[in-house]
């Protein structure tokens, strides 16, 4: 038996305090709102789980949640394969590699609202390069007019903004594979596809997991870009969860339901990330990997 020294708890006290002030206390205020009906600063009523029940039954929320899940899945389905493909086709060294890296990193440095603005102009059929080009081709395109166009543009915007992140992560992962693996594969007579399937993909597992989780969380919380580009429209077609939440909390000042929904939102992200993480762990390695 190892001796147990309860004083060790004191050592984690600073961390507990920091986390308390940065995360737990703000969260508690949200919890506080979520269980009360605040009519005025003097009049407040404890309502228990009423807000939660109400929010969960809100059909607008159901639509936004469904929209959000479809959007996040679409983001992952496009950005992850595209990022891997980009990383695979990037030069491994020399000035070309540096140039490509800089170009790729550029979109990551642009603030969200600027990205929204860029695409707002880019997609305009009168002065925007993208919109005008589509119009010239005879396509009746309008991201403010048609739900599908708005959807496609938001997705395209996200792909443009964030695929680089996946590509850069994969690029780093690819460079970390020792040459001997490729040489061994050549000696074993492996095809390009086999090299990808049995060497590159397994070795990218770690970075891919980071990429998928980051892109999932980020896209699940997307707010600024669609807000600037479409304002959630046309109709509600690009109103994602965070925008729905903002409308509730800031627009209508329904603090109680908004707080209740914030907590639900938080739990959804936590749950989905947990599922994703565990699923990827299982797919890539199995329990034996724990030995490494």
């Amino acid at each position, binding site marked *: 038996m190892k001796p147990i020294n309860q004083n060790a708890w004191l050592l984690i006290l600073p961390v507990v305090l920091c986390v308390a002030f940065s995360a737990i206390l703000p969260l508690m205020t949200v919890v506080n709102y979520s269980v009360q009906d605040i009519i005025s600063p003097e009049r407040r009523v404890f309502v228990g789980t009423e807000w939660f029940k109400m929010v969960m039954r809100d059909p607008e929320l159901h639509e936004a949640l469904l929209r959000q899940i479809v959007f996040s899945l679409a983001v992952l389905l496009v950005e992850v394969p595209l990022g891997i493909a980009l990383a695979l086709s990037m030069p491994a060294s020399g000035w070309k590699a540096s140039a490509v890296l800089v170009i790729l990193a550029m979109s990551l440095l642009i603030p969200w609202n600027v990205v929204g603005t860029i695409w707002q102009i880019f997609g305009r059929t009168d002065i925007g390069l993208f919109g005008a080009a589509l119009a010239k081709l005879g396509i009746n395109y309008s991201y403010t007019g048609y739900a599908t166009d708005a959807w496609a543009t938001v997705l395209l915007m996200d792909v443009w903004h964030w695929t680089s992140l996946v590509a850069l992560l994969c690029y780093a992962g690819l460079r970390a594979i020792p040459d001997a693996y490729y*040489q*061994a594969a050549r*000696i074993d007579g492996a*095809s390009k596809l086999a090299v990808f399937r049995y060497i590159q993909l397994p070795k990218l597992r770690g970075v891919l997991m980071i990429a998928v989780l980051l892109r999932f969380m980020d896209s699940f919380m997307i707010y600024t870009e669609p807000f600037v580009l479409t304002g959630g429209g046309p109709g509600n077609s690009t109103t994602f969860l965070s925008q729905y939440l903002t409308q509730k909390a800031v627009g209508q000042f329904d603090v109680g339901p908004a707080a209740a929904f914030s907590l639900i939102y938080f739990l959804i992200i936590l749950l989905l990330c947990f599922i994703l993480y565990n699923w990827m762990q299982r797919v890539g390695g199995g329990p034996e*990997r*724990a030995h490494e």
Partner: protein
Amino acid sequence: MARIELDLAHSYKSVAARDEDYALLPLKMTFEDGGAYALLGPSGCGKTTMLNIISGLLVPSQGKVSFDGRDVTHQTPQERNIAQVFQFPVIYDTMSVVENLAFPLRNRRIPEAQIQRRVREVAEMLELSGQLEQRAAGLSADVKQKISLGRGLVRNDVSAVLFDEPLTVIDPHLKWQLRRKLKQIHHELKLTLIYVTHDQVEALTFADQVIVMTQGKAVQTGTPDQLFERPQHTFVGHFIGSPGMNFLDAQVVGEQLKIGDSTLSLPAGRAQTLSSAGRTTVGIRPEFVRLSDSHDSGALRATVSLVKDIGTHWMISATVADRLVRARVAPDVRAPRVGDTVWFTVIGPHTCFYKDDRLIA
């Protein structure tokens, strides 16, 4: 299986003007079919470059490689049918041991029944049979290295098996087991094996023929005995043996050899070849330096600087004519103390004479 001939040079630079630009200086070399060879040399001497040229991972910038007289310079490793084991074990993480072993055969679309039979045979030989269904990623480094070796051996028609410092990441107590396994495989399969290492013990115990390399040159090819007793180049003398050969600057004057202030007579039978040598370097292994009495002719005066007990022998370091000379002497001799003056006999049948680093007598 094949007899491998090299007649080439290699430079990683596009324009190679000076000797330093070459990773491998022009060389001619033959590896006989079924031989066990070791390429031995310090880091950066060109041994891995040579190995990669033989395997076909690298095309030499000049010259050609032939297998059994057939020019294979521009063939891929697959076409040459080479197997190579790398410094770090290369295994396919997502596959089981049996899938790893079968991989090269599956890529060559060999019938499944034949693959199964061959994989069992190789697994049996490498003592992997008990672990066939395990996932390869979770195994220890020595087992992984056996799998990499196994992937080379499953193709029963391999031209040669090349090893690039394969035991670097293996635990010391497992090293000799694997080395023994390699010897045994060589014995059973009569394959041409080429083994790159910077560890002389590995090279000398593994190979029938050791090729010592330095700075892009193969300075000597020979059996372990030849390398030890008649190093053709001062580098070989210095690199092989622990510690390496002692070297003393000397001057041949007529029938006499001058080392520092002392004058010794040239060994009988070799005086003829040496008479016109002028400035030479005398090389003698610590094992062949003898302690002797002061009045022995042919003994050099030395001042002891260090005496070490190396178990079975004494290792005496002493200064002779401003050069450090080490002598390994039998334990029954009374060991001198630091600062003592002793007399070393350095001229004998095992003494080598060098001029411009090359053996002349």
